């Protein structure tokens, strides 16, 4: 039995860090969202003005729509793609660590660096291999950076490229935990590969898939640095993510609309909670069952 003093000495530091790095910034963000804030000066209470400005700014609506759409599409691709890749890697023998190492390159490269290199694939100025290939096949030049949908596709491909290794790695860990006995029993009962995956493996790693979905949604909702090189015209194309929008409003070019920026941050937290609700509900349910 752990003594009280021991318990507090172990839990205390992490509680302090959480209060300092999570609760204090959260409190300040909520407080500033009701204020007109200038750097270094006490804010002035403005009631719901910042929220009213946020809701009447069409850019907020565009950013919300773009971010939500990107999150849904990319999460779906990550879940399916991550599972398929993990299943394929799981069948590999000696080559597995090599393939895993290569796969993780895009995951360990800093996002903005990866996105910049990714943008060069589509940029004629820097070679533009994909651009050339598409032109060669279709006979048309796609304007990846100034047309809304090609740009959205490019951004989505980049986010998938950078996050797929994580999804694959976690799914692989899940697959390795599936009981061999159950799989052999399914085989003896005559279940084919598709049926085995659908009826045996996927239900048994449901928790892992849910975890990947949860993390993916949180990460994609916070997409920011990828857009700097990939969508330099994001505002005009309606391809501004919520985080980029908040940055542009609160900080860009030395701007200092921290009040509106904070209100937008609070609204973003609400959106994140709404989008995570199904996954959080499952996690709570699972915890209760245990």
């Amino acid at each position, binding site marked *: 039995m752990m003594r009280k003093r021991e318990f507090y000495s172990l839990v205390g530091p992490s509680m302090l860090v959480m209060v300092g790095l999570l609760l204090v910034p959260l409190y300040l963000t909520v407080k500033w969202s009701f204020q007109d804030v200038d*750097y*270094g000066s006490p804010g002035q209470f403005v009631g719901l003005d910042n929220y009213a400005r946020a809701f009447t700014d069409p850019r907020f609506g565009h950013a919300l729509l773009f971010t939500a759409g990107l999150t849904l599409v990319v999460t779906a691709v990550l879940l399916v793609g991550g599972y398929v890749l993990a299943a394929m890697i799981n069948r590999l023998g000696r080559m597995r660590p*090599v393939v895993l190492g290569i796969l993780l390159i895009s995951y*360990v490269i800093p996002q903005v660096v990866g996105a910049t290199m990714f943008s060069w694939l589509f940029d004629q*100025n820097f070679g533009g291999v994909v651009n050339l290939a598409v032109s060669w096949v279709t006979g048309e030049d796609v304007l*990846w950076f100034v047309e809304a949908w090609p740009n959205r596709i490019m951004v989505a491909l980049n986010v998938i490229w950078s996050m797929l290794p994580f999804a694959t790695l976690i799914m692989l860990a899940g697959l390795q935990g599936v009981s061999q006995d159950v799989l052999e029993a399914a085989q003896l009962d005559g279940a084919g590969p598709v049926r085995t995956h659908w009826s045996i493996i996927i239900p048994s790693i449901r928790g892992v898939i849910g975890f990947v979905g949860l993390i993916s949604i949180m990460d994609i909702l916070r997409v920011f640095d990828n857009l700097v090189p990939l969508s330099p*015209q*994001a505002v*005009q194309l309606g391809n501004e993510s919520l985080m980029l929008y908040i940055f542009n409003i609160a900080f860009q070019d030395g701007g200092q609309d921290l009040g509106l920026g904070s209100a937008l941050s609070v609204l973003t937290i609400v959106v994140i909670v709404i989008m995570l609700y199904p996954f959080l509900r499952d996690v709570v349910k699972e915890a209760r069952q245990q």
Partner: protein
Amino acid sequence: MRSRQKQLLPAMVSILALVALSGCGAGSRVAENGGGTEVPCDVGVPQGGATVEVLAYNSSAIDPFTNTMVRSCKQDNLVVRHEPIDFAGQLQRTQATLSGDKGTFDLVETYNFIVPTYGAEGKLRPLDDLFAKYKEKYGLDGLNQQMLDAMSYDGHLYALPMQAQVFTMAYRKDVFDELGLKPPTTFAELRDVARKIQDSGKMEHPVAMPWLASADIVTAYDAAMGSLGTDLIDSARNRPNFDTPAAGRAFEELTSLMPYMDPQVTTFDQPAVQQQMYNGDAAVSIMFSGRMNDLADPDNSQYADRIAFAPPPSVEKGGKQYSSLSVDGWSIPANTEVDPDLLFQLMAVSVGQEASESAVPAAYPARKGVVTPQNSPYADAANNAIKHAPPPEPYAATSLISNAITPTVAEVVTGRTEPEEGTRRMQETAAKILKENQ
């Protein structure tokens, strides 16, 4: 279990190696290799010593001045510290350090666009008394008066100029000579030249300009307005000028160049324009002079020896050049606790004659007569451009208005908004800012 460990080990090693490789560039101290020289630094250090924190972004044009200061003035009882940072980082830190009662930095790099705003807010220390006191000791009368004026607001000097950038035109002399063309002096001539190059089949998009929708586009618009003789603000009447004929005309003239530029020009910043010139995809480019030296560097492009330089054209015949004069300099935050005499002398040392000469050709120093055709390939063009650029707009609200109208300018240039609607919105936005900052 052991076989799984055996498999995990190489995977972990591969990941660690990749992380290490990707981190190689992180934290590299560009400033230490960025030029500059060591000069005598005979500054009076207060008793008890001092530590001076310097905020200045890294670029080939700024580094020589920062390096000269840091290298030359470190003494037993004086610590001069500078950490590498990019321009965006500098903007944010400047904002933060100038805001409170006590700041993090004691010397900040500023530029003429932002000096009036901070000067009006009382965040920078006026330098008039220190300038007069140390004028002779540091030969400050050798600084360009136009640049000193650019760093002044409401009759007070707020920054000591170190270097300037002005729009300069680079063009492919071989292409021009072959087609019998002359460097254009007006936008009409530029269109004519561009059409002839297009018709020759040599290049599809012969004109290259930095018109990045999130930043550079507003500088381009301001340059066009300035060339037409109109500031963004009518300071005498304290009202914006977006309801004047020049506001719409500037849009017309800018968009008239689009048929000759890459269709994705509104995503191009200056490095992208440089790349177009390196690749031989464009024959004429107009951007800040700090980018010109790179174009003439054979390490960057096979076309380097075919590049020539000229002043930028004017939008209409007889007008000012399509240009923007951006002056960088040093300022003393009003909230620093370090002795202002010491800080001013550090600034003065870094913009001295020898330090300025060492910055050429990467920079266009603020000292008169330092840039010559002997030491800089674009000297004649830049010297002419400095003389004929529209004068800077030393008004407190200019930078705020400029930031606020950027998305609208981009919408008009990209054809998403009609010029009439765009200028109406810009007028409304700017009028509101002027009212708030009265």
